[in-house]
C-alpha cells in the first residue's frame, strides 16, 4: 500500500496545479468580455454555422499531428539508446545514426515539399 504513495502525491500535485491555474487566471486576468471569448476554441475553425458539405478540417492539422507522432516515436527510441549507448559500442552508434538518417530523409522530404509551411 505504501509503495503507491508517490503516485497519489503526483495525482494530488497534478490536480492542484490544474485548479490553481484556473483560479489564478480568473483572479488576475483582465475582465474584458466579448462574444469571441465565449466561443469554444477550435484552433481558428468556426464550429457554427456548419458550412455546406459538413465542413472540412484543413489538412494541415493532420499533417502536423502526423509529423509530431513520427518524430516523437523517434525520440522515444532515442531515450533507451541514450541511456545504454556506452554499453552498445560502435555498433550501437552506427545503428542509431542509420535510424536517425532514415527519419531525417523523411524530414528533408517534408521540408522540401512544403509540408512545414503552415498555410
Amino acid at each position, binding site marked *: 500500500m505504501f509503495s503507491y504513495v508517490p503516485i497519489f502525491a503526483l495525482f494530488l500535485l497534478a490536480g492542484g496545479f490544474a485548479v490553481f491555474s484556473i483560479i489564478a487566471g480568473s483572479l488576475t486576468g483582465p475582465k474584458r468580455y466579448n462574444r469571441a471569448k465565449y466561443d469554444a476554441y477550435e484552433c481558428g475553425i468556426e464550429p457554427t454555422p456548419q458550412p455546406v458539405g459538413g465542413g472540412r478540417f484543413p*489538412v494541415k492539422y493532420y499533417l502536423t499531428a502526423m509529423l509530431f507522432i513520427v518524430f516523437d516515436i523517434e525520440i522515444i527510441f532515442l531515450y533507451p539508446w541514450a541511456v*545504454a549507448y*556506452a*554499453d*552498445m*559500442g*560502435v*555498433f*550501437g552508434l552506427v545503428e542509431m545514426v542509420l535510424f536517425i538518417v*532514415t527519419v531525417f*530523409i*523523411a524530414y*528533408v*522530404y517534408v*521540408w*522540401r*515539399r512544403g509540408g512545414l509551411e503552415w498555410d
Partner: protein
Amino acid sequence: MRLLAAFHAAANPNAIPAPHIEYRAILPMLIVFGVACVGVLVEAFVPRVHRAVTQTVLALAGLVAALVAVVANTGLPRRLVVQSAVAADGPTLFIQGTILALSIGALLLIADRSIGADSDFVAQAADLPGTEQERASVRAGLRQTEVFPLAMFAVAGMMLFPAANDLVLAFVALEVLSLPLYLLAGMARRRRLLSQEAAVKYFLLGAFSSAFFVYGLALVYGYAKSVEYGDIATSLTSSDRGDSLVIVGLALIGISLLFKLSGVPFHWWTPDVYQGAPTPITAFMAAGTKVAAFGALLRVFFVAFGGLAWDWRPVVWGVAIATMVVGAILGVTQTDVKRLLAYSSIAHAGFILTAFAATTRASESSVLFYLVAYGFMNIGAFAIVMLVRDADGEANHLSRWVGLGRRSPLMAGIFALFLLAMAGLPPTSGLWAKVAVFQAAYQGGAGPLVIVGVLASAVTAYYYLRIIVLMFSQEPAVEGPTVVMPGALSAAAIALGVAVTIVLGVVPQTVLDLADKAVPFLR
C-alpha cells in the same frame, strides 16, 4: 569491426555484444530499401522536370541489382540469419527472385507515360477531384512521382514478408508492404473518386486485418514465450499446457494472411480495390502481394504451426473451397474487366490453397511454381487492360471490348493468351501450374478439393473464354475504344509476361525443378 567490439568488451564489463548480421544474405532487401530512401531524397531535391526519369532509372537499377544479388545468394548455405530473425533459405530466394522479376514488370508499367495523355498517376494528389486546382495541375503537366519510392518500399516489404522468421518482423514487413499500397491505390489520374474510395476501403480493411495479426501475435507469444517460428514449433511439441491460446492466435494470424491473399471470407476488398486502383498498381498488387502473402502463409503455417497441421487443415479445406467457389461463380456476371480479373485472382488464390491444404513437400514446390506462372500472366493481362482506351481513359466495361480482336488482333491475341493461361489450357504455363497444384493436393489426400478445383476451373474458363469470344467474333462498335500501341516500357512488360507464359507452358521442367530444389522451408 570485431576487433573494435572485442576491445570495447574488454573495456566495459557490461558491454552488450553486437549482434551478428549477415549482410550478404539480406543484401537484396537492403538494396531495395536503400533505393527507396534515395528515391525520397530525389523527390526532395531533384527538379520537377527530371524527377520522373531519375526515379525510373533509379528504381529499375535498384530492382535489377537486387535481382542480381538474389541470384548471387543462391550459393550461400541455407540458414537463419540476423539472430534467427530472417530465414535465408531456398523458398526465400525463390520468392524474392519472383517478386523482383514481377516488380520489374510492374515498374515498367508504372513508369510508362506514353499510354493515353499521360501516365496513369494523379497530377497532384492533394487536389480535390473536380476542382480548378486539379485542372491547373493537369495542364501544368504535373505528376506525382512519389509513386516510385512508395512502390520500392512496398517491394522491400514484399521481400521481407516471406523471409521473416519471427512474427514481429513479419508484422513489420506486412505493414511496410501494405501502407504504400494503400496510398498507391488512391493515386489514379482518372476516376479519382473511385480510386480514393478504393484506397480508403483498402486502408480500413487492411488496418482491421493488421490488428488481427497483432492480436494473434500476442496470443501466440503468450503461449510460446517467443515470436520466432522455430521456437513456436518446438513449444508446440513440448508444451503440456492447454493449446486454445495458440489455436486462437494461429487463427487470427491466418485470418490476416488470408486477407492479404484474398481468401474468402476476407476477400471483400479485392474487387473494389482492383477496380479503383490505377491499373499498373493493380498489376503490382495482383502479382506481388499474392506472392509475398503466400510465401509468408507457407512459412508461418508450415514452419511455426506445422505441429498443429491436423488442426488447421480442415479449416483450410473449407476456406479453399469457399474461395474457389466465390471466385468462380461471382466472376460469371461481372461486366468490368478489372473486377472480373479481381474475381479471377480470388479463384486462383483458392486453387493455390488446395495445394496448401496438403502439407507435403510437393505442395510447397507446386505453390511456388503456380505463383511464378500466375504473377506473370496477371502482369501481362493488366498491361493489356491499360491499353484499351477511349476518350476519357481506360474503357473497362466489357461491352466496350466487343470486337477488339478485329481492331487490333495482336493485342487481343496476347490478351487471349493470358486468359487461356488463367483458364489453364495448354500450351500455357497455367496448365502446368494447375496440374502441379492439383496433383500435390491429390497426393496429399485432398481429393475433394481437387474435384471442386476442377469444377471451379471449368466455371472460370467460361468467363475467360467469353471475353475471347467477345473480342473476336463480333464487329467492333464504330465509336468504340481503340487499343493503343504500348510504349517501349509497357511493351517490354507485356513481352516479359508472354515470354514467361509460353516458355513455362512449353518447358516447365526447369522452373519446376528449381522450385523443387528450393523447398523445404528451413525449420
